[in-house]
């Protein structure tokens, strides 16, 4: 349903993605893995419209996302939960959640969605009047995911949700990702936490130096010699 075809992306004069193509199928969990600087975050930023590809197209449900501005992309139901959470630190948790639901449709169902999010994250309900900047790392990640859900996403893109979290929390986060997926949301996940993500995903692509080098099911890749050497094996 989300199809990225042959995109080249630059930061100023600096090329970071070369001819990247992949597709996300309906209701699956797709993972992009790769080392630091491989271009994973850049790929997500390009899908969400923060960056424009110089070449190539991004299609979602028949709509060319690469021609839309970020606010229109989110309107199409493609939502990006950014790296390092990026909450609005001086706003309360509730305000952060509201910020997730600005599109006309999400707005209409704001109260309902918020109930749903509070159900998913009871902690958030307790802390709803607290400034987001004062939350702990794990709570911030919950708030960021909740904020993403408020947009009623069809595709939810996560950029390293496990970053800086204790192992026990990492597990919680992945649990939540799976749950969201079960509720009918397609998930595109970018992770360095290779072993865990490959274990939970349906399919995965491996990015190296701004290029897709491998693709396959999570299991296949776990057993791939190159992946083993570069990311798993020691």
């Amino acid at each position: 349903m989300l199809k990225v075809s042959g995109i080249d992306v630059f930061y100023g004069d600096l090329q970071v993605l070369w001819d990247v193509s992949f597709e996300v199928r309906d209701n699956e969990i797709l993972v992009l893995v790769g080392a630091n600087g491989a271009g994973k975050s850049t790929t997500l930023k390009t899908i969400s419209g923060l960056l424009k590809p110089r070449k190539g197209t991004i299609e979602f449900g028949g709509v060319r996302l690469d021609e839309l501005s970020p606010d229109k992309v989110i309107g199409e139901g493609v939502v990006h939960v950014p790296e390092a959470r990026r909450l609005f630190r001086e706003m309360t948790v509730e305000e952060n959640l509201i910020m997730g639901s600005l599109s006309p449709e999400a707005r209409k169902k704001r109260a309902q969605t918020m109930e749903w999010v509070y159900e998913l994250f009871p902690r958030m309900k307790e802390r709803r009047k607290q400034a987001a900047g004062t939350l702990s790392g794990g709570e911030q990640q919950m708030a960021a995911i909740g904020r993403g859900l408020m947009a009623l996403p069809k595709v939810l893109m996560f950029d390293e949700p496990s970053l800086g979290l204790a192992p026990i929390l990492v597990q919680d986060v992945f649990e939540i990702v799976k749950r969201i997926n079960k509720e009918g949301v397609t998930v595109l996940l970018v992770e360095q936490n290779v072993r865990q993500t490959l274990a939970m995903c349906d399919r995965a692509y491996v990015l190296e130096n701004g290029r897709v080098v491998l693709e396959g099911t999570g299991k296949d890749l776990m057993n791939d010699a190159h992946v083993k050497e570069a990311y798993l094996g020691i």
Partner: protein
Amino acid sequence: MDVFLQTLVAGVLKGGLYALIGIGMTLIMGVMGIINLAHGQLMMLAMYVTFVLNTMGVDPYFSLFVAMPLLFLLGVGLQKFLLNPLIKADTILPENQVLMTVGIGMALTEIVRFGFTSDYKYITTTYSNETFFLGKISFSMALTIAFGIAIAFTVAMFFFLIKTDLGRSIRATAQDKDAATLMGVNTGRITVITFGLGSALVAAAGCLLAPVYYIFPDLGGPFTAKAFIITILGGLGSTVGAIFGGVTLGLAESMGATYFGMEYEDIIGLTIFVLVLLFLPGGFKRLTKV
């Protein structure tokens, strides 16, 4: 004691107006991270609008309804066509936008001078010279009304920012532009709207100041400086901070004038500015967390 109380009242009343001048600046600085050195000039423009309307028999307080939308549109235009294009320009000086506002300020002043000459204009209303007394302390009617309206605007602004999606989007853009973009906020539009809002607010201040002050093309500069000091005092993007900052500056000026001498008025403001920058970066906002 009377001297002290009268000074206090004078300072607080003036501070209310200052708050309204500062709040526009604080929004613009908060969202765009640039200092608008044409802020006072925008106010000056609004005062001329008020003046022109007054010659047609419109009361200055009613001209709020004309001056604010007009200045809003002007602010929108300035941001859209002169300031936003600079974000992309590759240049050695990152302060290009600030310098641009300097140019805009100069041009506005001179355009007005062109149309109205340098003559002082003034608006006299029935209430310009009215006073009422509480005990021995005199209150200028016009300044008291202005204070009331200024506070009303500031409070309205506060609720706008807290309670509406647009207001929240403005705050979100100020805090994290990229994240706001990801939430579907069109940040380019937000900067444009914010500059418009800031202009409209300072226009309101101009309308309120017009009956108690006078109008000439060069009056912008000192008010830009005051707006800036208020913003630094209050903290970027903080409405409550702007009230604190405005009243603090008003009080400091009045108290300074009474107890040091009026010629030190501006020096006192500047000194507070430098001290706050050095020792309380972030302003009152950092103390109150609002």
